[in-house]
């Protein structure tokens, strides 16, 4: 009997190890999720940075060097009328691939999505914020507290600014210069794609050319720089309609 005990001990140890490992390996398994992907276009073309190939409504050529914006208050409405709401803030940047995918940790039978372009008044007024809202991200006005909701920079030979640049830094949470805009998109058939067992994909299109038109067509000679409240709401009305849903 005595000689069998070490074997018993040994096998118990092995079984214990097995349990431990199986537990560890099962844990990081992904929760079912919905990935929202932001795909950037200029008109019908995929965005290529710094390429002077785009034309505005005045037939003025331009290139895009920088495009970033805040998305918050994401709400996904289910077909049964209930809602999934997120209170996260996201900074989407065309130069940062990782930022262009938002993971919603809940899969669902969604019929519409809504979100805010910008940052709500509370987060503009309650001191230093972290994460996407950290002022280190360069989307913050130090001299007049508040977030830049959307930044579009580029060049056009028609701009009279130094080096022919144009820059639109649009933000403002106070009336009458409130630049917060709401977006609501319906999600009909063939929009939420089942990619894997535990991940659905929703592809949104972002048409940057829409920042420069509807309702106000932007002439680079006239408006090469909007970086404070002057003309900010005009630009905000323009960017309210840049989003669309891509069908698969």
């Amino acid at each position, binding site marked *: 009997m005595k000689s069998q005990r070490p074997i018993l001990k040994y096998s118990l140890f092995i079984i214990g190890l097995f349990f431990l490992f199986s537990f560890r390996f099962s844990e990081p398994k992904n929760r079912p999720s919905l990935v929202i992907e932001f795909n950037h276009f200029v008109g019908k073309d995929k965005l290529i940075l710094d390429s002077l190939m785009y034309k505005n409504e005045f037939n003025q050529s331009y290139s895009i060097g920088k495009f970033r914006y805040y998305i918050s208050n994401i709400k996904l409405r289910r077909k049964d009328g209930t809602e999934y709401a997120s209170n996260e803030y996201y900074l989407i940047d065309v130069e940062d691939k990782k930022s262009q995918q938002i993971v919603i940790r809940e899969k669902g039978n969604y019929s519409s999505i809504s979100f805010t372009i910008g940052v709500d008044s509370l987060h*503009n*007024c*309650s*001191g*230093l914020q*972290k994460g996407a809202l*950290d*002022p*280190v991200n*360069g989307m*913050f006005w*130090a*001299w*007049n*507290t508040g977030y830049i909701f959307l930044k579009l920079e580029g060049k056009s030979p028609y701009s009279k600014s130094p080096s022919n640049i144009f820059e639109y830094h649009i933000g403002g949470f*106070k009336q*009458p*210069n409130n630049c917060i805009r709401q977006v609501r998109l319906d999600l009909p058939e063939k929009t939420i794609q089942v990619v894997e067992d535990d991940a659905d994909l929703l592809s949104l299109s972002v048409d940057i050319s829409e920042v420069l038109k509807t309702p106000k067509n932007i002439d680079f000679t006239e408006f090469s720089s909007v970086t*404070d*409240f*002057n003309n900010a709401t005009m630009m905000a009305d323009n960017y309210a309609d840049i989003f669309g849903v891509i069908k698969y």
Partner: protein
Amino acid sequence: MLEENPYFKITSKDVIFKNPKGFPKPIYDLTKNKPSVEGFTLGRKLFYDPILSVDYFTSCATCHQQFAAFAHIDHPLSHGIGGKIGIRNVPALQNLIWKDAFMVDGGINHLDLQPISPITSPTEMGENLPNVLKKLQADSTYRLMFYKAFKDSIITTEMLMKSLSQFLSLMISSNSRYDKFIAGADTLSIIEQKGLNLFASNCASCHTPPLFTDNQYHNIGLKPDSNLNDKGRMAITSFKEDYFKFKTPSLRNVEMTYPYMHDGRYRNLKEVMNHYAASQSCTKMKFDEFEKVELIAFLKTLTDMEYLHDRRFADPNTY
């Protein structure tokens, strides 16, 4: 190491906040960023360190001098990197936790966000936040100090700003001769008391004790300087009625914060009195020469020698 100088060593007694008698409750929430010995010491080092500027030459203290209640004595407009001149006079730093907005136009709405403005302004320290954090992160002394203060050696914007706020929040001036007079612990001369009475009936509605400001914005009838093109509060709100309005400054330590006004146009208090005596905007004030002297005598009782010489706020790099 300089930090070991016992004269500048901060102890737990130094970082205790006590609301001065008669002062309202602070606006800044100290429970969310309670000053600690380590955090305060770090904030002080940062305040006096030109590492925060792009040319390693300009620190916060370059323009905020303790003997001037942290204003810039004898400089009408602020100076920055490379000899650049700003458009406004450097304000005194005191009793900041009772302010609801910062800068003379009130553009900044929180103490924790305030230092970002001078650090990143092209005419002040000319830096950007990612670079400041990189420079601090590369410095082993700072890594250690941030670790001691925040239990983390990866330096973030939040840690940087909170340490500065811990230093700034305790900059409290409440021990002037006026305060002692109010508390019954000192007397004022007859001329100072006359000045106090004149002040109470003519000036205190905007320069309201005990903070000597109403935290509001006013146009006091100064002629705009077309070279500066300063729009005042209107640059923040966009409202036309806010054109050339500026935040009422506190008058504590006003004797030491010359020159005066948002653009430093008046060299001394006498010139300020002359403005108010002639001003269209404050018609009640028709001070004669005696009254001007009395008012100035009273204003000088607001000088807080304990604050101007408090070793906790002094440059820790001096011997």
